[in-house]
């Protein structure tokens, strides 16, 4: 119902609630760690610093040592670089491609929409882990291959999501008005549609980021992730899985690192400020 008085609830804030703020802080902290890792790490990543493997936590080795006697703190800090870095680039690529193509399909419609949608449907029907395995196993694991593979895997999902949103926005009168004005595809997509789907796309971005972190660690588990002696968190868990029954900190800390990151992202999405969440929803 339209009102002729500005209803009191309309002015909403960008403020985060407590949980959202906490999650955001954790995520930013990890991002910072990823950025500064080489400065923060007390020991070189591949260096065996202790002849005892699975050493417990100590003043010298805050997170103990791993299965070869390497300092876990350094490895977890550097792991942030790979986990956060690769996932972030991959998710950015996936969302960029997915959102761009999705909006294009929604605005142009017709055979372009049909062809794109069918192609994406086909891609989505191949199980993501297997697809990743096939490509990475075949082409060999390197960081660019990992990033591209992860991006391709998550593009169709992002495409579908963005397309669904864009189709809704595309039917809005202001887009119709812009069309009637004679605006081209670029303007429609950039100025009319994109700003109004950013909220949900942002949430989707976060969710997909979590999926990518987990898929990356899954690939690492199968030995196809970041190659040693470097290791992302998933690879760290995998390397030290043998220490699980010994309660070694070497397996606990990277697991915790993954969990804090992914849980924070999930919580952040659930607790996004209304203003962002509702953008175009």
């Amino acid at each position, binding site marked *: 119902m339209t*009102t*002729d008085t500005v209803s009191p609830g309309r002015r909403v804030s960008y403020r985060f609630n407590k949980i959202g703020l906490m999650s955001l802080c954790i995520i930013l902290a990890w991002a910072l760690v990823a950025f500064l890792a080489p400065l923060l790490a007390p020991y070189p990543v591949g260096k065996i610093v202790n002849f005892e493997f699975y050493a417990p936590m100590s003043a010298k080795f805050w997170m103990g040592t791993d299965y070869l006697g390497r300092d876990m703190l350094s490895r977890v800090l550097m792991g942030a670089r790979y986990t956060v870095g690769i996932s972030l680039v991959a998710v950015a690529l996936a969302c960029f491609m997915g959102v761009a193509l999705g909006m294009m399909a929604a605005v142009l419609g017709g055979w372009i929409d049909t062809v794109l949608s069918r192609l994406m449907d086909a891609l989505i029907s191949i199980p993501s882990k297997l697809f990743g395995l096939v490509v990475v196993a075949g082409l060999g694991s390197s960081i660019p291959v990992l990033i591209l593979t992860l991006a391709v895997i998550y593009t169709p999902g992002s495409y579908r999501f963005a397309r669904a949103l864009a189709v809704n926005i595309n039917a809005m009168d202001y887009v119709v008005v812009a069309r009637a004005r004679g605006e081209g595809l670029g303007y429609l997509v950039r100025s009319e549609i994109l700003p109004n789907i950013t909220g949900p796309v942002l949430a989707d971005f976060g969710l997909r980021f979590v999926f990518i972190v987990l898929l990356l660690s899954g690939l690492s588990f199968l030995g196809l992730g970041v190659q040693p002696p470097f290791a992302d968190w998933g690879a760290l868990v995998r390397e030290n899985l043998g220490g699980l029954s010994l309660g070694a900190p070497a397996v606990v800390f990277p697991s915790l690192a993954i969990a804090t990151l992914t849980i924070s992202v999930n919580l952040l999405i659930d607790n996004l400020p209304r203003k962002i969440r509702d953008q175009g929803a």
Partner: protein
Amino acid sequence: MANIVEVRNLKVEAVTDAGRVVTIIDDVSFDIADGEIVALIGESGSGKTTIALTLMGYARPGCRISGGSVKLGAHDMAGLGESECARVRGIEVAYIPQSAAAAFNPAHTIMDQVIEVVRIHRLMPLRDARAKAIELFKALALPHPETIGERYPHQVSGGQLQRLAAAMALIGDPKLIIFDEPTTALDVTTQIEVLRAFKSVMQGKKIAGVYVSHDLAVVAQMADRIIVLKGGTIQEAGATEQIIKRPGHPYTQALINAVEPALFAGVNAKEEAAKPPLMEVSNLYAGYGGFLDKGLPRLLAVKHVDLRVPAGHNLGIIGESGCGKSTLARAIAGLLPAVTGNILLEGKALAPYARHRSREQLRQIQIVFQSADTALNPSKSVSEILERPLLFYHGMTRRDRAKRVGELLDMVKLPRGLGNRRPSELSGGQKQRVNFARALAADPKLILCDEITSALDTVVAAAVIDLLKELQRELGLSYIFISHDLSTVRAICNDVAVMYAGEKVEQTSPDKIGQAGGHPYSRLLFDSVPKLDQGWLDSLKQDEALIEAYAVR
């Protein structure tokens, strides 16, 4: 006579998204006697629905009854807990919503939902309940009363659903029924049927009622007493006759004035024929869906329409929902390409697709939509919205644009300071003005107005119409004014075209519409518009055959 409802010093608070608490209903007190129908009238945001819902002990999410008492029979609904309220709802007080189409659950049959109250409160055996429901269907003059309950909500028309919602409310024999704008979403021809059914049932059963509406003419037919609300407080209360004949409060007076606006005193009809037309449409066909063999779309929404709009003149297009009037506007704007037929602008043919038209052609025809909410991009400021056509059509510099935006805001009588706001921070009327200013920014010759006042409150709508007229005088514009509301069209148009089922059935001047000799459908439409007269509904005699032929029930 005992009072069934006694509301004292009611106060309702709402929490805004920013966490601020605001009072939306303040110090409202009124009584309803047994069998009496009291109308709550006011514009949107006046708190009328909120007050009505407190009678059921309910406040919408984010709201809270923070003071006063709401006595309903023996209960104080303001003080009852959720489960206690639930025991009262449906059997002591029942609710008929504005949109029955939305209030019926699409997943269940109508009968299951009508007798749900019986099931919830275990009032009687289900077989008896079904028999009772069928009785009610008959009383509400529903077609096929025996079998209509087996259908699903989407299988019956809006007018029927509205009456079925009444049956749903009546099944528990409540002492009080709340009507929440029950006919607002209906076409006028349908509205009459529904109002008649309501009235006869209420009179027959002697049930008290609260009738919430913004439409004085409708309320005049239904209510014994009227309470006028504004901004959450009572402005005036009194018997229906007193309110409509001798309004005490200036606000009530304004409401009454807005019901029947004056006819458009346009330019002389003789002169126009001589001038070359600004816009000429001939033999236009348009529709949706894939194409059939003969090159016609699967769903033909506009058939064989001819129109002629002389420069500086306004053409009204009127018809009920689904008559094809909006499709016509879209075809003219090139949004939905016409299948056949010509659209001439100043004698030059326009391409069916907007993207094939020149920028200059596009500039000359602008379209303004009904819902200001969806017509403005929520992520842009008012200035940005207005600047785009200036840049796009006129290639103005940043400074010129800023200056022009100020002028445009002046033209539509909005403060210049509004330029920095976003649409969500504007009221409905303001949005519609911005919407209109955007069309003006193009410097057009013709503006297609698609139901632009329908979502606005009557007083606001009247002001917008006045603005349109004023701008026309200053800028020499022409409008094609599309509406379902006859009185609005008559207030602004030189000519009125009546559309029915995709075809133009008649085109005439506003004063002649509905008069004898005109098209029977136009007459039906004209007759169905409620009058501000208590006896109008009872005395209205309509041709049954005509209704049978044209009314969409």
